[in-house]
């Protein structure tokens, strides 16, 4: 079966300034393979500045990589034109974080659903289109009469985000990039949105890349996880293993700082430190905040395989099997 989407050693660097070139590495040497026949949910976890948004933008074809290639069904996505590009768009979709920003304030909320129906020819008549919209809206727990014909500012944040998810349901893409889909939504509503996403994968075979900084929701919905920090993969593998038994110092700090709603699970065992020297360019991205940093860390560590489905990029695990960046997908369960 074909590979749906491949990232081959993709890096993205932003540089600015004409005289003195100042560059920031947003993503370093990421390789990922998403197969069509094994739809699964992968979490990309990281804070702001980790590169997770850059990854989303690359996957959607909105930005081009500095090095490496992104291949869609055997073709480089920057070279897609016409019908092939439309097919790519049809199969790779997104749900974004801000429920308000995705709506064009000039139009009613129907616009979000009617445009793709028309462009991708999902319905043969206006009536059929309306039926599909009603079906999708009902599936996310909304009443079409309350939604159709309204403007975005007339609805609540929760309703708007549900409409976004309804759009994904309507399109049934092969790959859905969900970039923080519930972080701007109330806790009581998150469950239904996450459940809809999970059903998309389970019942309709949609692969989901769930991008977030909130590991608690990631734990519930995903099967595999990649932890990013300043553009590098720190740890990866099966989500239960990584969250319950984190190995990389960064992942440990992250898990330790999660505010669990549970009085028995207190945060703060690890102290948060900052090295005055600051980051070392070209070295491990976590060097300046790592309690266990060594001189070796001035060059980035390769991925070490700690278990069939757990890897950590840290010299602390030097004795283990070393993996190439291109093999990342092998360590992620489906």
């Amino acid at each position, binding site marked *: 079966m074909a590979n749906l989407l491949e990232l081959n050693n993709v890096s993205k660097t932003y540089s600015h300034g004409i005289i003195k070139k100042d560059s920031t590495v947003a993503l370093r040497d990421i390789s990922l393979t998403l197969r069509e026949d094994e739809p699964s949910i992968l979490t990309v976890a990281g804070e702001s500045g980790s590169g997770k948004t850059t990854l989303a933008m690359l996957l*959607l074809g*909105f930005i081009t990589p500095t090095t490496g290639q992104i291949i869609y069904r055997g073709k480089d996505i920057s070279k897609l034109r016409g019908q092939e590009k*439309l097919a790519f*768009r*049809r199969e790779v*979709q*997104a749900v*974004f974080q*801000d429920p308000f*920003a*995705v*709506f*064009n*304030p*000039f*139009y009613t909320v129907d616009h*979000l659903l009617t*445009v*793709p129906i028309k*462009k*991708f020819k999902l319905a043969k008549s206006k009536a059929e289109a309306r039926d599909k919209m009603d079906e999708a809206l009902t599936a996310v727990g909304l*009443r079409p009469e*309350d939604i159709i014909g*309204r403007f975005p500012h*007339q609805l609540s944040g929760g309703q708007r985000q549900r409409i976004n998810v309804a759009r994904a349901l309507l399109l049934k893409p092969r790959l859905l990039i969900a970039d923080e889909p519930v972080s701007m939504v109330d806790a009581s509503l998150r469950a239904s949105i996450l459940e809809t996403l999970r059903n998309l994968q389970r019942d309709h075979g949609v692969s989901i890349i769930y991008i977030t900084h909130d590991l608690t929701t990631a734990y519930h919905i995903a099967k595999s996880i990649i932890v990013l920090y300043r553009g590098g993969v720190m740890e990866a593998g099966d989500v239960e293993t990584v969250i319950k038994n984190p190995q990389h110092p960064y992942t440990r700090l992250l898990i330790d700082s999660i505010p669990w709603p549970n009085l028995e699970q207190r945060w703060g065992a690890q102290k948060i430190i900052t090295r005055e020297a600051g980051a070392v360019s070209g070295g491990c991205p976590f060097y300046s905040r790592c309690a266990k940093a060594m001189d070796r860390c001035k060059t980035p560590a390769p991925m070490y395989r700690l278990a069939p489905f757990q890897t950590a990029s840290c010299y602390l695990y030097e004795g283990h099997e070393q993996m190439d960046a291109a093999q990342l997908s092998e360590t992620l369960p489906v």
Partner: protein
Amino acid sequence: MTLALAPSPIKSPSRLHRFFRYLSRNKSLGFGLFILLALVAFTVIGLMVIDPNDAYPLSAPTRRPPSWEFPFGTDFFGRDMLAVMVVGMWQTAFIGVVAGGVGTFIGVVLGFISAYFGGITDAVIRITCQILTPIPVLLIQVVVAGSLDKRDVTIFIMALIVVMLAWMAPTLVIRSQVLTMKERQFVSVAKLSGVSDMGIIFKEILPNLMPFVAAAFVGQIFLAVFASFYLAVLGLGPLREPLLGNIIWLAQAQGAFFNGWWWWPIAPSVGMILILGSLALINMGLDELSNPRVRKSE
């Protein structure tokens, strides 16, 4: 257990009602629109009532003060001032709308191209605008108008002279708005939905630019009308036409006040103040409308 459904939507007041309520809050816009509409009514009704020829010399007895027959009096050359006001307003409006329209159109097209396509195109357009902006417009207009043969100056030429240096500001404003809008997430979603570049420009971005285009348009009309006034007041206009600025120049040249013909320059002066005042008020009002931060909360 029955779960009551979400409460039915709030019934909001009708759009017309909300429009008038907004106008009462945005007094600039309300007042400006009112005066402008009054002037438009004056002009339109006037054109139906008077004979345009009366606005030209030797159509009426000269130097008559306001009376029942000539409500605004007549001037030195035998023009019926009422006809002069009506025709003059109409011509001013023509210059304003044509020059304003052309300036805005150029601004929108260039601004869009510059912002959407970026790169060299953007650099060229932007730098051209920035270089041309500090040029003293008044000076150039006077020089150009002054060097033309008096007989060649028509209203149309006046409009073009005015527009010549007025298109830069709308270009830069529209450009910055499109630059912002291009990055908005609804544009990304439209791309994901298969919308082409052209589709995004016309269907997604342009409708949202309407307030800015409207504000730019009003601003351009204001500049055009104002320019036509001061060029005419300096005697550089098409002297035969009853442009309001022309009348003032002629009245001043003939020493109207000293000779006691007060009604001659008064009508066009009041007309000028009302036109410019209403346009300025509308401009301020639209500024508040299109800038959500400035808008007073409802």
